[in-house]
């Protein structure tokens, strides 16, 4: 390969790159987009290799994601710590690096020098002010990369970064929604003498960390969970999934709701430090005459009994999950007479920037009446949400013990 550049006007080259990235946004996935972009960069800059490494934020490592002329880098799963080696330096220093000498003293990744690359040029991929990866090209023949080459590569990198970023955001949103859907029970288990119904509405177009769960324990007791992980998007949905599984596991170990939440709290603080969540766990006796409830910072359910005004259940407020070690947790025990409806919900249903929280709670109590759970869900959503789009996500779970003689 010669070091003489094709005399194509810069505008034409830019147009090439622009056309790839812009059109690709709507139809290609991340890997297809990067593969196509790298091929085009190879021909425009007349280089032998081109590669993209994307930053894994939690690991602090760059991971080879796409390559042209250097496919082994991706196939071998190359990882470069930020700050070390050629690509690591680009990511850490947030600026282009040119290497006209490639060997083990300048490059960490042996694939690059074993391949016979003589010169390397790399630029950071930056999206939203943050480095999200590195794009580098290499020449198998001696070559001095110019400032014009760097500019060209940086332009391509900026377009690639924008595309990767928007695809990542989109993918995460889809993944979070799919995860959330897979974790919420599609049909609630049948429990003799109980009827249940639920609603889940994502907030402001993004799913959050609200969840509910219903299962029957081997003892015949019915368990009901509702919770809210602070935050939103994929991260919150993943945490929510872990909490749901952990709670189910602890529920099999002990039927004491306070102990289940204490174990869950300990597990979360050890393995997911910094995460906060509210959780309410209720265990109904097999005959459904009584329910034991423990709340870790979660709003108490509304109890609707025929012939009485609905009210908040008298459940002691326990500290939310993730807040402090070894907090005392109390259990409330409630009688359930036939005809009773219990309404469990997350804060998105009652919080408002215009009114204090008690206003929302009072409206909810008014809207909850003892009736079949599907109708109760509909009535509550109509009264509290109406036609407004919720800012926060909303989960709603109704438990109804039908009046005697109707089951």
């Amino acid at each position, binding site marked *: 390969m010669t070091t003489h550049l094709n005399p194509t006007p810069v505008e034409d080259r830019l147009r090439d790159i622009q056309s790839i990235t812009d059109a690709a946004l709507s139809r290609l996935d991340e890997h297809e987009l990067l593969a196509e972009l790298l091929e085009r960069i190879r021909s425009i800059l007349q280089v032998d290799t081109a590669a993209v490494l994307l930053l894994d934020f939690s690991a602090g490592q760059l991971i080879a994601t796409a390559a042209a002329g250097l496919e082994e880098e991706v196939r071998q799963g190359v990882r470069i710590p930020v700050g070390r080696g050629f690509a690591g330096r680009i990511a850490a220093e947030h600026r282009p690096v040119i290497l006209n000498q490639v060997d083990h003293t300048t490059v960490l990744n042996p694939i690059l020098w074993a391949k016979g690359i003589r010169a390397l040029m790399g630029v950071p991929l930056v999206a939203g002010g943050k480095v999200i990866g590195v794009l580098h090209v290499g020449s198998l023949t001696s070559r001095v990369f110019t400032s014009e080459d760097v500019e060209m590569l940086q332009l391509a990198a900026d377009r690639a970064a924008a595309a990767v970023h928007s695809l990542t955001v989109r993918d995460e949103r889809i993944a979070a929604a799919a995860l959330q859907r897979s974790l919420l029970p599609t049909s609630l288990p049948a429990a003799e003498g109980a009827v249940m119904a639920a609603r889940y509405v994502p907030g402001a177009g993004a799913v959050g960390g609200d969840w509910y769960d219903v299962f029957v324990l081997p003892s015949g007791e019915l368990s009901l969970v509702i919770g809210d992980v*602070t*935050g939103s998007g994929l991260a919150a949905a993943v945490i929510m999934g872990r909490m749901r599984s952990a709670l189910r596991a602890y529920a099999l170990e002990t039927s004491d709701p306070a102990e289940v939440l204490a174990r869950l709290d300990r597990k979360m603080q050890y393995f997911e430090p910094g995460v906060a969540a509210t959780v309410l766990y209720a265990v109904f006796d097999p005959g459904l005459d009584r329910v034991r409830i423990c*709340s870790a*910072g979660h709003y108490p359910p509304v109890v609707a009994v025929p012939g009485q005004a609905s009210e908040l259940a008298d459940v002691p*407020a326990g*500290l939310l999950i993730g*807040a402090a070690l070894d*907090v005392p947790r109390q259990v409330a025990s409630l009688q359930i007479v036939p005809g009773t409806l219990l309404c469990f919900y997350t*804060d998105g249903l009652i*919080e408002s920037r215009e009114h204090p929280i008690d206003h929302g709670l009072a409206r909810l109590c008014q809207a909850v009446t003892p009736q079949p759970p599907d109708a109760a869900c509909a009535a509550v959503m109509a009264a509290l949400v109406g036609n407004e789009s919720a800012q926060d996500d909303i989960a709603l779970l109704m438990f109804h013990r039908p009046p005697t003689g109707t089951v």
Partner: protein
Amino acid sequence: MAAEEYKISRAGPRVVVTVPAEIDAMNSDEVREALLSATGPGVTTLIVDMSGTTFCDSAGVHAVITAYRQAAQAGTEVRLVATKVLRVFALIGADQLMLTYPTLEAALADTPAA
């Protein structure tokens, strides 16, 4: 970070941090950072002034609790001034962690709410 929303005033070993009117997942990290930045050597009491706060969701409560935990580990006492959002702290059980006061004056004079 809008500086005026996080007024930090220090009177000897006591620091008062005034937090924004509305706290949710959008600014809870800022709130936590503002509270933590106010603690340090020589500070014995951190007063979180939420008397002007009208909305605080669970993310906001968690930010205050996180700051409380770190301050407590450093031996700093945390006092919470809240009126409109006190109920949210009570519902989440967070009022059990720290002393609460109805006004900033009461917090400075250390006369807790009944």
